[in-house]
């Protein structure tokens, strides 16, 4: 019996090629989408699972309570780790990790026999010696237990080792590490590790020992438990320790060490733990060592995966049931010959299962093919190797079988329920219920597609809004040059002077940070007549006298810094408008001439407000503009040089800048970026989401249209006699096309009506994640509706025109 079904299924497949193609193609694409997204989700969930002690490793997190507002941070002060370990016996070991926060790139240099290798490396960290005792790293050389114990030691990836030394062993070799954060120092390589295939929230490519760098003294002598919240701190808990028990002891700890201080400031502090495996996805903290994943995006993508597969399943159901008149005789005959309903149900389920399995084979092949492209779009390194993910393959097989059952279930029950008496007499007609269900399913498909179209349009509108919004400064034509090494910093003035002499360059400035990158420095400040109790957070940037002019940040009152006022150094401030209103000044003009201050170790540090600038976006548009102050620092060289290239030929100017760089800093490679591109990096997550959604939207529309095309084909076939008769009675081809298309268009219109409010609701929720956002315009809906109607019309009318053009005599003869 089974062989019989198999044979029949195979012949059915071959005989009805359009039907088979639409189904297998649709199911394959549905499965491919599902698999790719599953792999992405699997990847997101696999963060940090490989660490052997992962269950016992916790990150210490920090909540600031100010004016009733709570803000959670992943970082704590340096002294926290040691004190907590000393006070709480549940903690077996602690380790601290500090990002080289001012380096988006760090300079590594190896010199041997007069020749040198110099290059920039990303993702450098300073870590305690205990780091590798807690985290599992795959050392291919060196001893993880002792690697960071000695001062000036460094652990690097195998890739860096190969870049520096080729096949030679790296252990014991000395390299120079130039960092804006940690200074210029020589380090001895004590370990080489191979990064795990599975992802980790710590993306380090090299680790520096705490001792030996500029940060050594700062880290080891820092006693404050309130400020300098910049250390990622991890605990290894003793076996069997519940984190809740430890967390319950934190309030006592806080009270013991900083209770009084907090009360004096009128603020609060709480500590809590996050398990290592939860850091990437299940943490409320928005910023961590690497940007955490988003559960919301996982839900969005997961829904898309399910919906695409659902669309393909609906195609299968609709095409199967619409073809039912053709199969009704078979059902009738089989029943007459003694087949029971149950047997027939299994037969039809078997057929859909075979299709699903064929689709599965295609999907598995194409997933391998699409994975690299998908990985690029998603910005993740996702792999699918059999040894590694056998369970995942098995899961996909289960998914395919499930898809087969889902797609086949309705047709199976529907077809097997035919009464042989009726169908064998040729009295078969699609029941009202079956036709309604089919229409309902088409509406579901189009609702999904339309929601996806609207989502794509809204996302792309928001993204272009983000790109085009006036940020309050000039972001175009701004070349950013990072100054890492001591040599580069020492030559800042020379470089600046020489660039100012290039005629096309309008202005050159220097700063600690620039818009779009992290601005970690902030002070709690109060104005005249207040105390630290009233203090408010002000983000601080240390700049030179021409930075504000270079960025063209607009002055609204007072003056900016300039060479004429060298006394501004560490004494005066240029504040933004939000700062003016946050401090309660009635106008910018009123603020100028006043001072704001902070207390540090019992001393008041005052800054006179000499100017007020218009609000500008220092951070991306997810975030509201906050109080922001510039202070002039002429002592230390800035981290970045920014050159406003003006309207001249960019590559020409870059060549000139590069030769200036080479003349002063010949040993270091010249690297630069553009401010607008750096700023755009903040929208990477959304850019990726936008891309993924638009691709999946296209796919969803494609599968929906395939289904519609199939239905139109069968509808035209079924009505062939009617069409012939109408033509004989005088209907024009146009009349007939209208007749055949009208039913489907009605469904599309219903879908538009259902999908629009749904899409509006979902997209409005998404837009709430931006502090600055577009309103969803009626034009979006109009455009989408028009698009959906056109797509449906094109799909359906092809069949309608074909049917209408046939000679009616031929049609009538088919009876």
């Amino acid at each position, binding site marked *: *019996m089974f062989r*019989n079904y198999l*044979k*029949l299924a195979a*012949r*059915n497949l071959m*005989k009805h090629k359009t039907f088979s193609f639409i189904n297998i193609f649709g199911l394959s694409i549905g499965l491919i989408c599902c698999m790719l997204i599953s792999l992405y989700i699997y990847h997101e969930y696999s963060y940090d699972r490989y660490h052997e002690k992962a269950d016992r490793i916790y990150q210490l997190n920090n909540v600031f309570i100010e004016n009733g507002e709570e803000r959670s941070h992943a970082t704590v002060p340096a002294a926290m780790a040691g004190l907590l370990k000393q006070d709480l016996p549940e903690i077996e070991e602690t380790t601290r990790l500090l990002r080289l926060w001012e380096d988006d790139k760090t300079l590594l240099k190896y010199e041997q026999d007069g020749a040198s290798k110099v290059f920039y490396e990303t993702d450098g960290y300073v870590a305690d010696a205990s780091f590798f005792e807690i985290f599992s790293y795959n050392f291919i050389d060196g001893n993880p237990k002792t690697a960071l114990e000695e001062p000036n030691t460094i652990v690097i990836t195998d890739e860096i080792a190969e870049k520096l030394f080729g096949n030679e062993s790296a252990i014991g070799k000395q390299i120079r590490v130039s960092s804006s954060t940690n200074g210029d120092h020589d380090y001895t390589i004590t370990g080489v590790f191979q990064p795990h295939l599975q992802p980790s929230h710590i993306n380090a490519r090299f680790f520096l020992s705490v001792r030996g760098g500029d940060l050594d003294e700062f880290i080891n002598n820092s006693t404050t438990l309130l400020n300098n919240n910049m250390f990622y701190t991890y605990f290894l808990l003793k076996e069997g320790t519940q984190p809740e028990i430890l967390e319950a002891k934190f309030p006592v700890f806080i009270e013991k060490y900083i209770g009084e201080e907090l009360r004096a400031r009128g603020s609060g502090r709480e500590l809590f733990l996050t398990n290592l495996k939860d850091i990437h996805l299940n943490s409320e903290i928005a910023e961590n060592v690497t940007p955490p994943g988003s559960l919301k995006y996982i839900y969005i993508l997961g829904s898309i995966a399910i919906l695409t597969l659902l669309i393909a399943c609906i195609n299968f159901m609709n095409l199967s049931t619409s073809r039912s008149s053709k199969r009704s*005789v*078979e059902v*009738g*005959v*089989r*029943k*007459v*010959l*003694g*087949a*029971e*309903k149950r*047997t027939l149900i299994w037969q039809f389920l078997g057929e859909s299962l075979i299709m699903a399995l064929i689709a599965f084979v295609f999907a598995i092949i194409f997933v391998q093919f699409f994975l690299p492209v998908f990985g690029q779009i998603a910005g993740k390194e996702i792999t699918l190797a059999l040894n590694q993910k056998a369970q995942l393959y098995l899961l996909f097989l289960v998914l395919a079988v499930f898809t087969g059952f889902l797609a086949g279930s309705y047709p199976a029950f529907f077809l097997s329920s035919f*009464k*042989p*008496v009726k169908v*064998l*007499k*040729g009295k078969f007609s699609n029941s009202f219920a079956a036709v309604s269900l089919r229409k309902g399913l088409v509406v579901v498909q189009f609702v999904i597609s339309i929601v996806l179209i609207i989502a794509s349009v809204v996302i792309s509108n928001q993204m272009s809004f983000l790109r085009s919004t006036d940020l309050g400064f000039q972001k175009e034509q701004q070349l950013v040059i990072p100054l890492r090494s001591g040599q580069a910093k020492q030559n800042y003035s020379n470089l600046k002077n020489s660039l100012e002499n290039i005629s096309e360059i309008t202005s050159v400035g220097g700063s600690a940070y620039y818009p779009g990158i992290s601005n970690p420095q902030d002070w709690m400040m109060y104005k005249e007549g207040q105390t630290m109790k009233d203090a408010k957070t002000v983000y601080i940037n240390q700049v030179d006298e021409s930075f504000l002019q270079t960025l063209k940040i607009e002055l609204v009152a007072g003056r900016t810094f300039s060479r004429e006022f060298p006394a501004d150094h560490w004494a005066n401030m240029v504040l933004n408008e939000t700062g003016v209103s946050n401090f309660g000044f009635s106008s910018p003009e009123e603020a100028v001439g006043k001072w704001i201050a902070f207390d540090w170790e019992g001393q008041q540090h005052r800054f006179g407000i000499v100017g007020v600038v218009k609000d500008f976006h220092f951070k991306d548009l997810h975030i509201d503009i906050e109080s922001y102050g510039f202070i002039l620092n002429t002592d230390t060289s800035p981290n970045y040089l920014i050159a406003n290239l003006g309207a001249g030929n960019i590559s020409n100017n870059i060549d000139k800048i590069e030769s200036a760089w080479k003349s002063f800093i010949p040993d270091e490679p010249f690297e630069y970026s553009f401010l607008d591109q750096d700023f755009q990096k903040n929208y990477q997550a959304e850019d990726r989401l936008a891309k993924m959604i638009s691709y999946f939207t296209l796919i969803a529309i494609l599968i929906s249209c395939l289904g519609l095309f199939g239905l139109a084909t069968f509808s035209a076939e079924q009505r062939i006699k009617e069409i012939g008769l109408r033509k004989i009675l005088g209907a024009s081809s146009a009349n007939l096309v209208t007749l055949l298309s009208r039913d489907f268009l009605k469904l599309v219109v219903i879908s538009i009506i259902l999908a629009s409010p749904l899409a509006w609701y979902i997209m409005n929720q998404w837009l709430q994640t931006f502090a600055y956002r577009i309103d969803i315009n009626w034009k979006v809906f109009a455009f989408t509706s028009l698009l959906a109607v056109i797509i449906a019309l094109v799909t359906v009318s092809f069949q309608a025109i074909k049917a209408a053009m046939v000679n009616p005599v031929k049609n009538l003869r088919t009876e």
Partner: protein
Amino acid sequence: MITIDNLEKFYRTEEVQTVALNKLSFQVKEGEFVAIMGPSGCGKSTLLNILGLLDDPDGGSFVFNGTEVSGFNERKRANLRKHNIGFVFQSFNLIDELTVFENVELPLIYTGVKTADRKTRVHEVLEKMGIMHRRNHFPQQLSGGQQQRVAVARAVVNNPKLILADEPTGNLDSSNGNEVMDLLTELNEAGTTIIMVTHSEHDAKYSHRIIRMLDGEKVTENVLV
């Protein structure tokens, strides 16, 4: 073999109730060849469907081989049907996707006959019907007469006690029609009971007895032999 007594069947639409069978009673003995005739809509096909256990009567009794079968559920009916009754239709009703061999094999599959036995029996029947050489063809590659032979082969492959034929020559030309009627006669002579619905007086003459119906009732009964 078959006794029906006061058999009733109604069809209801929202407004009208049509009587398809009106207290119909007759008997068919084992080995008989009975033709049922009458104008369109007189209830012939309804009767055949009830006799074939494809439909349930609304009233009266239907005794098959000594068992009252009206009121049997779908499963019991299917079981009784597949072991005892063969069908021949006007429009052949072969499954287009199956070959001649496979079409004929189908009833044996549903009665659970083993593969090797199936092959022997299908070959026997095809030989008998003179279509052995066509066993690997698909129905649409055959002429109407050949298709109906396949249908007859399928109806008899299980050695049913009863064959129900619904206008078996309706879609055939006269020479093919005669061939099919000869086949049925042969089967009847070998002991199979046949009940045939027909419009054709010519075909009816092959039978032993003609029951004529009008408006769901039996009007006359002529014994020919």
